[in-house]
């Protein structure tokens, strides 16, 4: 039936595609890039996806997504030092940011704060976290057995192990596979979420909050929940990052980190699931490659990319490419829309 919203076959196809693409990438990519580098690209991809979900599909522009990334990493590190086993810390790393985000989200959304004000609050909360964590070098800042360490960060915590066996570390190539599978898993969960009624309502809220509330949806609660889900994903990415770097430092909370996540989403494409992941991995790798030359400063190029994308390709790469592909193949069933942010985030929506 045309225009049908529910399309279970589509979901199955999507899942199959995810599994096949993941499998191919996990097999092929290590031939091109070392797994150590790939691992961090995957982690950044997950972080990009976390913002891509709440911004691209929920219209919540969070200037402080790095706060949840950092919270996840710190929760993991502190718990890992205290428990000496990584399973519970991994779970906490997802839960703590989610709970914090739920509280913060409730504060913001029930206060009817929107766009700029939302930006200010998320930015300020990130700054507070950064300043606080950065000034905890003294011996009085202890959680259980873990010194917070301030500027030094927390090194030397228990890294990921096979659940129940603290001495069986997962590192190197094995860790790469774990991260890849987790990213695929998160991707699938996001897909399922977006296909569910909750996901569709979220897109509706992104498009027109007032209308959705006039239709009887509690916009505040739904935005809060979506915000918390995004934070949970960012937290997971943070824990994985902590395991990869074997240290957590306050710079995880920095505004620079938040800025980068936003840039990934813009460049990759908002309103798509793949865009933020590809944007994150691509730009992070580009940054590594740029380190090879000293002709032009790295930050300068990042900035230029952002400006150019906002001016000339506000929809991002993935929607632009898929749009091109569709019109080539003659399947341009979706018409062009003016190139504004609204249009930009409307590409991939109900049918996933």
């Amino acid at each position: 039936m045309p225009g049908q919203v529910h399309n279970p076959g589509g979901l199955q196809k999507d899942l199959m595609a995810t599994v096949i693409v993941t499998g191919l990438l996990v097999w092929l990519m290590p031939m091109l890039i070392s797994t150590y580098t790939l691992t961090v690209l995957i982690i950044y991809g997950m972080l990009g996806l976390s913002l891509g979900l709440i911004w691209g599909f929920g219209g919540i522009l969070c200037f402080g997504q790095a706060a949840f990334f950092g919270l996840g990493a710190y929760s993991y590190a502190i718990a890992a030092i205290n428990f000496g086993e990584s399973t519970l810390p991994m779970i906490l790393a997802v839960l703590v940011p989610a709970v914090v985000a739920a509280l913060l989200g409730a504060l913001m959304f029930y206060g009817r704060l929107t766009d700029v004000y939302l930006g200010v609050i998320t930015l300020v909360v990130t700054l507070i976290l950064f300043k606080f964590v950065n000034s905890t070098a003294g011996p009085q800042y202890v959680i259980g057995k873990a010194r917070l360490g301030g500027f030094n960060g927390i090194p030397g915590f228990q890294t990921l192990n096979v659940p129940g066996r603290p001495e069986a570390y997962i590192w190197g190539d094995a860790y790469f596979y774990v991260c890849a599978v987790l990213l695929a898993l998160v991707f699938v969960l996001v897909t399922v979420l977006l296909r569910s009624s909750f996901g569709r309502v979220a897109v509706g809220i992104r498009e027109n909050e007032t209308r959705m509330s006039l239709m009887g949806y509690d916009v505040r609660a739904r935005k809060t929940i979506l915000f918390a889900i995004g934070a949970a994903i960012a937290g997971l990415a943070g824990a994985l990052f902590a395991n990869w770097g074997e240290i957590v430092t306050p710079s995880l909370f920095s505004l620079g980190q938040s800025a980068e996540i936003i840039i990934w989403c813009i460049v990759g494409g908002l309103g798509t699931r793949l865009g933020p992941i590809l944007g994150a991995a691509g730009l992070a790798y580009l940054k590594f490659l740029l380190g090879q030359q000293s002709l032009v400063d790295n930050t300068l190029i990042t900035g230029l990319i952002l400006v150019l994308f906002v001016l000339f390709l506000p929809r991002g790469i993935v929607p632009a490419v898929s749009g091109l592909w569709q019109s080539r193949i003659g399947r341009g069933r979706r018409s062009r829309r003016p190139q504004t942010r609204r249009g930009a985030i409307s590409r991939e929506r109900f049918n996933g």
Partner: protein
Amino acid sequence: MGETVLETQGLTMRFGGVIAANNVDFKLQARELRCLIGPNGAGKSTFFKCISGLQTPTEGQVYMRGQETTRWMPHEIASLGVGIKTQTPNVMDALSVFENIWLAARRFHAPSDAERKTQEIIERLALGSIARKDLGQLAHGERQRVELGLVAVGDPWLVLLDEPAAGMSAEDVARMTEIIHELNKTAAVVIVEHDMQFIRSIAEKVTVFHQGAVLMEDHVDRVLSDPTVRNVYLGKKA
């Protein structure tokens, strides 16, 4: 007539020193159709916003089916089974007609029912040919019609419409009138409107607002021939 579905007592709304709605007592029976008229700034839109939860009145109470809803949020009021349409077309521009209506349907129905219900509304409102188009691409009249679809799909017992006929062609208005009558079979309807042609074609009883207060409330013909009303409102136009 049956039960009172909407009632306000002493509803007052002040913005700084300006009184936009002044001590409004209002009653609406089940399946009644009522038009609110009055010159610009008479307070009818403020009144509308206060009862639909978009604004919180400074004083006074709002009751719906006997339940006080004075400080409720729009989504809570809508959840009671109240369909609301604001003045400007308020739709999800980047989503298709089907998707828009489905979202409204899903609020009150399980997923499978929502789908059926959506189809039903699309047929009822003759939107089949544009069901897959995005709202952003549609003409004004079509968008208004879709928004009525959003209101209708929840099977409301009370419908609040703010200027549904504004800026529409005669043909569109005729179709709109039809839809509203259809809605009125099962729901009480409140319409804020300017268009006298439209009011005559649709309403029996009207409430006239003037300077934030209710000036009079009567059958449309009597109201329109009333000298006071003509003076404050129609006199300038006629």
